[in-house]
């Protein structure tokens, strides 16, 4: 089971280009989708979730064509958009019951079992009887995940929000994705690059509707190995270092400032070798594409 994307192109009415001829293969497992705002991540996910028609090209989800087999794809799909809301007058349990009905889980016993299980998975069992209108942002996010899990989806598409989850919750969910990503495809669009190093089997970086990278996290890190350095700098020499080196991050340490850079060789007296991180690799990739605003 996999997702196959060939020459996928989306031009919005008005001429804005969402995707510019994308070729991608997404296997089973956790698949991370990275890229700045407006890079085409949401466009891609909405097309795969059959909510948006592509202008050209084709995409097959588990063998189903997104143009034609929408109903079939929706049967095996779990989708959590970046922004969403619920009906405030229904309780969490009733909300899930509503969405389970929309997923055509018509047997009452089966529906109840799945709702119970989904509530456990997102840790909302205790507030199942509370109206959703009283929920905090984080609780709504978790309910959003629960509704996507109801039909035991073979394909789970999650457009992660930029905010709303506290750190502990975030780690719990990251673990949940890894647990769930056994035999199914999970596409996770996220802003927290670092998390993907340990959890994602594959990832892709999009920029302006084009694919900058696709592969395993380790493949993204590989070119930076023995090319990543940390330099302890004085505050006044920061701008000079920025001009000389490919800077991927600036940090404040106890002794002064540290700059992470990517370079073939290190000439700076206070520079030393470091292990590349996902953040380094991501910023490096984006900068090479001329996309970063960090400079």
């Amino acid at each position, binding site marked *: 089971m996999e997702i196959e994307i060939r020459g996928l192109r989306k031009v919005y009415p008005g001429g804005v280009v969402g995707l510019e001829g994308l070729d991608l293969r997404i296997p089973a497992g956790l698949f991370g989708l990275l890229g700045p705002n407006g890079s085409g991540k949401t466009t891609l996910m909405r097309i795969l979730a059959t909510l948006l028609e592509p202008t050209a090209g084709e995409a097959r989800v588990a063998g189903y064509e997104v143009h034609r087999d929408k109903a079939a794809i*929706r049967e095996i799909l779990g989708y959590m958009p970046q922004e969403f809301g619920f009906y405030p007058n229904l309780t969490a349990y009733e909300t899930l019951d509503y969405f389970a009905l929309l997923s055509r889980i018509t047997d009452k016993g089966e529906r109840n079992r799945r709702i119970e299980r989904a509530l456990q998975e997102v840790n909302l069992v205790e507030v199942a009887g509370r109206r959703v209108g009283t929920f905090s942002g984080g609780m709504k996010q978790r309910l959003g995940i629960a509704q996507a899990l109801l039909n035991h989806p073979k394909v789970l598409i999650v457009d992660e929000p930029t905010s709303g989850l506290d750190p502990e919750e975030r780690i719990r969910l990251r673990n949940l994705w890894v647990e769930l990503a056994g035999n199914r495809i999970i596409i996770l669009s996220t802003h927290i690059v670092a998390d993907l190093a340990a959890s994602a089997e594959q990832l892709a970086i999009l920029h302006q509707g084009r694919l900058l990278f696709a592969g395993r996290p380790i493949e993204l890190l590989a070119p930076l190995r023995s090319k990543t350095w940390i330099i302890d700098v004085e505050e006044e020499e920061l701008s000079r270092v920025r001009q000389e080196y490919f800077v991927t991050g600036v940090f404040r340490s106890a002794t002064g400032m540290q700059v992470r850079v990517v370079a073939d060789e290190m000439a700076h007296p206070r520079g030393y070798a470091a292990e590349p991180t996902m953040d380094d690799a991501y910023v490096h990739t984006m900068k090479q594409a001329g996309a970063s605003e960090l400079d």
Partner: protein
Amino acid sequence: MSWTETRAALRVAWREYQLSYRGATFWGIAAAGSLLAIWRASPAGTSAAMAAYQTLQITLFGIAVLAILVGAAAAARDRREVASELVLAKPMGSTAHLVVARFAGVWLSLLTIVAIMLAAAMVRQAVGGTPWRLGAYGNAFARSLAPIALATAMGFSLTSLLVSPLAAGVAAVYWVCVPLARGYMPWVSDMTPAQHWPVPALLGAALVALAATSYGKALHTPGRGRVGLGGTTGVLFAAAALVILRFVLGGEDALVTRDPVLSAIAAQRSREGERAPGFWLPDGAGRLVGLSDFAGRPVVLAFWGPGSPESARATDILSEAARKYRGRGIACVAVCVDRDSATVGPFGREHPSLVMLWDRGQHYGDGERWSDSPLGLVYELKEVPTFFLLDRNGTVVNRVEGASAYALETALSDLMRAR
């Protein structure tokens, strides 16, 4: 659609109903409507049939309008709560079943409001010690089904239709046609829910089907099944158009007031000392009763309208007279002037000693010049209630205007003495 899917759709309708009745809007409308119903059922002497009739009027002119808004709000809920994408990504979330199920839920919630209002009026009546007469309230409830369905469907569908060029076209045609065809508005306003229920029912169904079609299209649902739904919509609209044509053009309810022959008859005088114009009018069961049925008997003919409680007292006064002169051959005939033939049933059952007949007409409340009822024109009615006293030969011997028991009693005893 299989049985399990139907059951799922019914469950969705139930959830939609919950969504509706848990909102503040629902209880606001229910409370305001109930207060109005209680107020209209409060005047001394208001009978159950009158309380139910007044509540139905509030329903038709108030709740039906609100139903448009409630339906529109329900259809826009997904967009308002940003839940559209969650719903659409589900297999049933993008099909017509969802639209129909949601409509059913909203309709049910508005009918609940009507039921609450009727119950409020009924409790008010019970507190006042008036007989219950469940049938009168049931009659009013049944008559609200179709108009509430149409109003809800209008609001529900317009939300999705107004954004489409088709709807813009329909609206344009409508606004061009209204000034051109001036006779059109009376046709519409003369439609009554009880006599013409197929019109709102069919139109409502067609609107919901249209909404379902456009909903599916907006979501790019797979083509399968869309043709069938579009076809159904077309057939429903065509049926509604035919039914409207039949009622408006060929039906027995054509506006007789504009009939030249009737206008000529209306020019006859119906004064004291002249022979009363004859008539054939239906009673509550639809049987035609004629003035000639009472040949050789003195007749009290009372015109009244349920729109004004003051005028409705005429039926009580006449009932009293009928009891008093029982066994002396007098016929007491009450002509209920209303747009809707179904009104006369409950009132007739409340006054078994009267012959309760229906004449199509309109009344605009107390003191207003009010009647376009054909028989009212012929009898040169100036106000309701008016009593006409006819002797054994069918000659009008007296005419009493206003609901005065004393004046009627005086005139009646004169009539009975004179024979």
